[in-house]
């Protein structure tokens, strides 16, 4: 039989999922598939835009179907082509760009858009949204918000529902002053009762989000951009960034124009087929089924399955019966799940609740005839997975009602997994059941990552990742293999660091391009260049063939790139010391080169921020001090307190030691991660040596304690005491060995605070203090070689290493 043509309008979560379901049923044999999407990219996980806004995830993590996926599956994708017309008689769709496609079967999955209430001033005279006003629906909306958000920006979100709260929380992370304006009497009124709403308000306010309730916005102020809002009660509020999250509107106009029945959305039967035309199906937020239009992803997974069963003929009786609604709020710092009704509706409804307002815990269940019909869980949502399942499946609840709210003598996990029914959902975001995970495991997936890639379990909001891991382990009877590629040093060469080092040594590969040629089949992966360069420099000190293009820009021009493409200049100030003459030179240079920002760094140095690339050589020359190495994965700095000369508590010369450390180890220009050091003259620890990668604490009598693996940044960890040694020479020897061991062993980008606990303090002590492996002599040699090879990188100012090394712009000849 000749293939039929399936055309899909809308390349979003429902459309792409529906196509995947069709492919899973052998649909590639039956259909030529053509998709239209209004965006230039592939399908992404829209619900994760909240995490993008809050900075918890990056774009590459949320793509579900990147562009190559379509080609690989033989699908023609018209990306960026908006369909404007469906001719149902000729069976042809036409896009705004003039692309025409004939169909045998049509699927409409155009989703919805942000609803813009008719508030005067929301739009410009030209009809576009006023600058500063955003919906929250697409990557482009999110990008716009991120670009407009900055510390001090006054952000207002209209709408205190799920989306509005996630937006407000995300904007807070950008330092915005964030306010939610809600028309209703309490937050999330669709999912919470008044008590829950009030507790949520407290939680949001505690985080720093201002909440205004029962507020009706009457006007958006501002001439050419938004500047404020006026409310019905006469009050006004300043606003630089306005997010409108006041609900969604189905993109159903296309159905209306094609003569299909449209009420709130395009009306479908139980097969997800238009009631007017047997060759047109509709799934997702643009579909109306039995009077319901959904705004969550779980229903559309079911719809996609029914559609696929029906259209491929796998099951012509497949029918959709509607979905029950359950949600979790994705606001960092608030745990909230809600399902079904929020208040008892009938006489026979039984309400079970528990409240501990001080802790922000609230649990309320509504039970009808022994079955769950509604629930709110706040603060502690440990029972959410169980309850959501009971709610969704309408299963009978245990008589012991208390156990619905709390784990009483928590049953061991094993028992629960054994008992868990096969069709129970493990991942709600992507609709993956326990059985589906079992199928993936049976199909050969032996690692959690492989199962996640095959089923998408855990790739939605991520809150079920732990459970996915447990279920995979359960199916494998504990024999989970780790994903081998997580151990590879770079993604393009299937070798662990030690294997790679061995291959490089054996084949004497001394440049990054040589490694690509010998080990990666000649394919140059840009993301692998830097880690390879770092490794080669450690393996071949002095012999490494330094191809400049394998360095990150920071290491090509010896400064830290800023978000506007300028660089920062940090001269060396060993131990935080400098002379008045040096200060004068720095000040003069800052004036001469119009440096926009002069800042003291956390590492006790002066940072000149915002220097143009072409000014770098000049400014270095004027300052006349060596580079402070403040840009790379390398030895960075050694912070110190004032030590013994002046301090009345001082027990050791912390400044002297810091200076010696800096002048020696600044030569370690490559390492897996940056190394920040500190010395402190007494256990009062003024220079925070306990939270440094390597920290030295004077304890008197010329003795120093050496701490390793500390951190005081995004991650906070107190360093582990490696050993106590006598005299500065010993300190220099032990920390040199420690840093070299770390340079040779750690994974790229692995900081000491992860590496130390991973390898174990005992092991590190054995290697670097007791020389259990006999490696110390080599460590000492390699450190000495690095020191001998050291040259101040800022000397490039007089002898550039490459053509146009510091040029921002080269004029064309003609």
């Amino acid at each position, binding site marked *: 039989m000749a293939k039929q043509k399936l055309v899909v309008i809308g390349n979003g979560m429902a459309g792409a999922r529906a196509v995947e379901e069709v492919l899973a049923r052998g649909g590639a044999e039956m259909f030529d598939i053509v998709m239209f999407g209004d965006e*230039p*990219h592939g399908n992404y996980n829209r619900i994760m835009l909240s995490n993008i806004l809050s900075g918890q995830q*990056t*774009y*590459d993590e949320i793509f579900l179907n990147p*562009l190559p996926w379509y080609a690989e599956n033989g699908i023609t994708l018209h990306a960026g082509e908006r369909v404007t017309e469906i001719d149902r008689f000729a069976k042809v769709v036409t896009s705004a760009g003039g692309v025409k496609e004939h169909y045998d079967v049509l699927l409409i999955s155009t989703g919805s858009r942000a609803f813009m209430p008719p508030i005067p001033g929301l739009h410009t005279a030209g009809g576009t949204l006023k600058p500063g006003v955003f919906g929250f629906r697409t*990557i*482009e909306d999110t*990008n716009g918000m991120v*670009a407009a958000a900055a510390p001090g920006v006054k952000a207002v979100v209209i709408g205190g529902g799920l989306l509005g709260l996630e937006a407000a929380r995300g904007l807070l992370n950008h330092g915005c002053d964030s306010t939610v304006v809600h028309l209703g009497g309490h937050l999330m009124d669709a999912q919470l009762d008044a008590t829950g709403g009030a507790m949520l308000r407290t939680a949001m306010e505690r985080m720093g989000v201002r909440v205004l309730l029962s507020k009706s916005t009457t006007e958006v102020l501002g001439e050419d951009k938004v500047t404020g809002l006026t409310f019905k009660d006469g009050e006004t509020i300043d606003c630089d960034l306005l997010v409108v999250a006041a609900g969604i509107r189905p993109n159903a106009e296309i159905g209306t124009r094609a003569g299909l029945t449209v009420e709130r959305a395009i009306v479908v039967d139980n097969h997800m087929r238009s009631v007017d035309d047997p060759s047109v199906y509709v799934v997702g937020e643009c579909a109306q089924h039995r009077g319901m239009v959904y705004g969550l992803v779980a229903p559309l997974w079911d719809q996609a399955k029914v559609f696929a069963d029906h259209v491929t003929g796998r099951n012509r009786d497949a029918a959709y019966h509607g979905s029950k609604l359950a949600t979790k709020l994705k606001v960092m710092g608030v745990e909230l799940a809600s399902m079904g009704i929020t208040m008892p509706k009938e006489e026979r409804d039984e309400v079970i609740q528990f409240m501990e307002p001080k802790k922000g815990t609230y649990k309320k269940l509504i039970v009808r005839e022994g079955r769950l019909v509604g629930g709110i869980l706040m603060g502690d949502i440990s029972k959410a997975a169980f309850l959501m399942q009971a709610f969704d499946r309408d299963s009978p609840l245990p008589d012991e009602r208390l156990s619905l709210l709390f784990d009483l003598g928590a049953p061991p996990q094993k028992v629960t997994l054994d008992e868990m029914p096969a069709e129970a959902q493990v991942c709600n975001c992507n609709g993956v059941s326990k059985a589906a995970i079992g199928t993936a495991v049976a199909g050969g997936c032996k690692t959690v990552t492989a199962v996640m890639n095959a089923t998408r379990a855990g790739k939605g909001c991520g809150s079920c990742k732990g459970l996915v891991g447990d279920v995979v382990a359960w199916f494998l009877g504990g024999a989970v293999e780790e994903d081998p590629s997580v151990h590879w040093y770079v993604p393009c060469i299937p070798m662990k660091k030690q294997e790679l080092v061995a291959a490089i040594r054996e084949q004497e590969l001394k440049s990054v*391009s040589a490694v690509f040629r010998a080990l990666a089949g000649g*394919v*140059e*992966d*840009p*993301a*692998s*260049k*830097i880690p390879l360069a770092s490794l080669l420099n450690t393996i071949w000190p002095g012999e490494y063939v330094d*191809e*400049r*293009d*394998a360095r*990150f*820009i920071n290491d*090509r021009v010896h400064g830290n*790139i800023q*978000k*506007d*493409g300028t660089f920062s200049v940090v001269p060396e100030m060993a131990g935080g010391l400098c002379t008045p003459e040096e200060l004068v030179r720095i000040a003069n240079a800052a004036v001469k080169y119009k440096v926009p920002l002069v800042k003291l760094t956390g590492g006790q140095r002066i940072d000149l921020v915002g220097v143009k690339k072409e000014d770098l050589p000049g400014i270095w020359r004027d300052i006349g001090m060596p580079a402070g190495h403040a840009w790379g994965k390398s030895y960075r700095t050694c912070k110190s307190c004032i030590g013994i000369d002046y301090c009345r508590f001082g027990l050791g010369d912390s400044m002297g030691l810091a200076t010696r450390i800096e002048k020696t180890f600044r030569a370690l220009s490559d390492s897996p991660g940056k190394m920040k050091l500190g010395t402190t003259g007494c256990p009062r620890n003024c220079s925070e040596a306990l939270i440094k990668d390597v920290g030295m604490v004077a304890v008197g009598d010329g003795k120093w304690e050496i701490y390793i693996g500390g951190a005081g940044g995004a991650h906070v960890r107190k360093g582990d005491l490696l050993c106590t040694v006598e005299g500065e020479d010993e300190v220099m020897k032990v920390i040199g060995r420690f840093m070299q061991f770390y340079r040779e062993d750690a994974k790229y980008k692995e900081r000491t605070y992860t590496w130390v606990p991973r390898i174990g303090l005992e092991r590190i002590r054995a290697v670097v203090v007791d020389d259990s492996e006999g490696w110390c002599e080599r460590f000492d040699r390699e450190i000495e070689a690095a020191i001998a090879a050291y040259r101040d990188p800022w000397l490039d100012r007089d002898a550039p290493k*490459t*053509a*146009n*090394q510091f*040029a*921002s*712009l*080269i*004029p*064309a*000849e*003609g």
Partner: protein
Amino acid sequence: MPGDTLTREHVLGNVDEIPVGEGRNFEVAGRTVAVFRNHAGEVFASQADCPHLGGPLADGMLGGSTIMCPLHDRMFDLRTGSVLVGECGITVYPIRKAEDGTLLLSLDG
């Protein structure tokens, strides 16, 4: 010259203005264009600013025909301008290297 009216080629300079494996920005006809030279000797030209948040692509990491932005690691294929990691693609311009190493770029090709 025949063909001159169709696409005018701009002379950028010699390929040696760009170190192997790197990129540089050129100012041509009032525009800034990023030009790259890879280890295989191929040259590419594209818009200078990353479509994400304006990062300088010429300062990125080049491997084959892939460029990775230095600010947040978006990746693009310089042959086609298509996006490999990120949200949208970039504009690329036809460029060729003459026998003597002169780089010729057409902006409106």
